[in-house]
């Protein structure tokens, strides 16, 4: 108990009590969001298995209309994005913002519950809508038209209290980089979401091919200006906290943030390079998609410098372990985006499985790994008990890492193969037999990888449910993956 002498200090004691009060004030909404998110994640991974199976055994589970690939695949992605992604992000944002502004959440909590319930109802209806034949077939916006206003209002019910809470706060330490990102996410999501939905759902008679461009812009900006900021924000928050070292470079943080803010809004249209859009649109998307390598590299380097010398903690702390991998996936997903964006490589990878690989590495490899790390940190503090089992956390970690790496690598290689098959001059008069055969092995690997991930998520969900039910370990010491002799983590890591 290395904290015993520290507790005697009245300042630290008051500080601990203040933190506990803040944690308690956000407990309900945060746990509600995490639990529902974990449930959707589970649903999404199972759908991922079936959708991958459908690509090489089309009659798997029969020819039932609900389970056709064209309906399953969007359901799988939408469950991942709106069911898991946005909800987990909101929970993390809420907790970090409450801690960062040093204030208890006083008002708006009941509204948050209502919003949370409505969010889940809307997602459920939306996904059932896709499965039962009301899909719009716009990427990431396949859910029927009526869903988006509910999602928007629910999101604002969370984002608005966060922003005002932060606006009221007294900040002696000034702005911290993690809050930039999270405030940015609060601000960008509604803007992107309203723009895309109004443009694609409210214009009569619609926007034709420009609509497709806006759709691609929506997917890219949502990844880069919502999921990315939340993930980096939590990495910037938790890495210094656990390693006990300040963020390595203020300048790198600033440059990484503002370059992302300036560049990301231009990306997206390169998805339809060589298509009907005016040529400058894909061109500027391709340019910014490649230029994003700079902020991505800067942030990755900054995280690396912050972790430097404390790598043994990656083995010990579950939070740092997940966030370390998540932060590593950031440069990797940036590189994949650059490959998809540049015309030279993008023309081969366009319309292939590589695009799926990018979505999965961005949402699962990068964002979700950071989110898992944050959840492993936040839940014990708000639930008032510690994670039950080291083995369950390890299971979750290794099955996720190997599963995701397999899905992503298989999708990228399958994409190269497919792009080669599509564009090879010898294929000019061939049908799609070769292409179908060549992709089979990769799709089998994808199905197996999603099975591994499903396995990891089963344990994550059960573990989280036990924690939410308050059945965790009663202990003042956190659950660490490896116990070192002597002291384990710096004081800040337990705060």
């Amino acid at each position, binding site marked *: 108990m290395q904290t015993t002498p520290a507790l005697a200090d009245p300042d630290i004691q008051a500080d601990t009590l203040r933190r506990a009060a803040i944690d308690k004030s956000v407990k309900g909404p945060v746990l509600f969001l995490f639990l529902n998110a974990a449930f959707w994640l589970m649903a999404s991974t199972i759908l991922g298995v079936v959708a991958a199976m459908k690509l090489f055994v089309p009659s798997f589970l029969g020819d039932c209309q609900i389970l056709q690939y064209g309906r399953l695949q969007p359901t799988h992605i939408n469950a991942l994005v709106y069911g898991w992604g946005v909800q987990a992000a909101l929970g993390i944002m809420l907790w970090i913002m409450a801690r960062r502004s040093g204030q208890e959440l006083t008002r708006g909590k009941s509204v948050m519950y209502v919003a949370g319930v409505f969010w889940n109802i809307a997602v459920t209806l939306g996904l059932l809508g896709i499965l039962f034949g009301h899909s719009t077939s716009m990427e990431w916006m396949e859910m029927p038209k009526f869903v988006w206003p509910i999602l928007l209002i629910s999101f604002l019910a969370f984002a608005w209290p966060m922003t005002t809470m932060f606006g009221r706060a007294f900040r002696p330490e000034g702005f911290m980089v993690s809050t930039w990102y999270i405030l940015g996410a609060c601000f960008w999501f509604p803007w992107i979401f309203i723009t895309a939905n109004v443009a*694609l759902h409210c214009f009569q008679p619609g926007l034709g091919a420009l609509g497709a461009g806006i759709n691609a812009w929506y997917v890219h900006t949502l990844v880069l200006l919502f999921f990315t900021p939340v993930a980096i924000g939590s990495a910037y928050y938790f890495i210094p906290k656990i390693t006990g070292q300040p963020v390595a470079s203020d300048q790198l943080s600033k440059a990484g943030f503002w370059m992302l803010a300036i560049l990301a809004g231009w990306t997206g249209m390169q998805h339809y390079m060589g298509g009907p859009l005016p040529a400058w649109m894909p061109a500027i998307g391709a340019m910014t998609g490649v230029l994003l390598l700079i902020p991505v590299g800067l942030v990755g380097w900054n995280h690396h410098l912050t972790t430097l010398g404390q790598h043994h903690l990656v083995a010990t702390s579950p939070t740092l372990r997940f966030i370390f991998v998540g932060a590593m996936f950031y440069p990797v997903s940036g590189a994949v985006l650059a490959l998809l964006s540049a015309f030279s490589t993008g023309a081969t990878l366009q319309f292939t499985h590589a695009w799926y690989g990018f979505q999965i590495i961005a949402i699962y490899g990068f964002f979700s790994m950071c989110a898992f790390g944050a959840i492993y940190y936040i839940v014990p503090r708000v639930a008032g008990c510690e994670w039950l089992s080291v083995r369950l956390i390890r299971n979750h970690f290794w099955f996720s890492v190997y599963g995701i790496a397999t899905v992503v690598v298989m999708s990228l290689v399958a994409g190269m193969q497919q792009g080669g098959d599509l564009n090879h001059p010898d294929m000019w008069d061939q049908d799609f037999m070769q292409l179908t055969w060549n992709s089979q092995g990769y799709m089998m690997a994808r199905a197996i990888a999603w099975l591994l991930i499903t396995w990891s998520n089963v344990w994550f969900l059960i573990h989280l449910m036990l924690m939410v039910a308050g059945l965790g370990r009663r202990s003042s010491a956190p659950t660490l993956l490896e116990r070192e002799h002597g002291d384990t983590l710096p004081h800040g890591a337990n705060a």
Partner: protein
Amino acid sequence: MSDFRKFILSLALSFGLPWLFLIVIPVVKYQALTPTLYDKDRDGVEGIYPPAPINRQGQLVYAREGCVQCHTQMIRPPQLALDAWRKGWGQDQEVRPAAPVRSNTLQDYLGEPFAFLGVQRNGPDLTNYGWRAPARGVIHQKLFEPRSQHSWSNMPALKHLYVVRKAQGPDADKSLKLTGKYAPKPGYEVVPTPEAEALVDYLLSLKKDYLIPGTGAAVATAAPAKK
């Protein structure tokens, strides 16, 4: 507070710029986009461009079944990809067409609420499918059971768009010609629902390589000097 305000303003500015130039202005401009008239002297044809609208009812079926997940509707230019040289992907069904299929313009999709350019190309591109489409019955057979035509196909069988019913007298005109293990039980026949008919109408209406007004025969013969 001023810090906070400055921060929000900078965010608004940095994102507002792409938002304005990439989304708002193009949307406003797109509203002004109208079909253009062919000039008989210049283009050699009469009428409006784009000439034939797509079948919207069928497009709704196309959307809800998620066909976009595997089928694109966009021909890329030859310097980027092979699309334009693929056999039968344009109006010219010759084995070796004289010129590549032209890539698409914004106007090709005019009047479509949303252009289904597609997510992946696990199956053939359908931009100009109407030109190469076989008889209706063959398309229906493909939609009902793709593996009855190609054993390797991984396309979903859209059986719910068809009705298996007791044959009343001789087979109806519309009934599908299925053989072997895909044939219905004796005395039964498979007929398309109106939705399947609409989907086929839509597929047959996919012709997006009509001559662009003002380009003359330049695109077709790849000889831009002779304008």
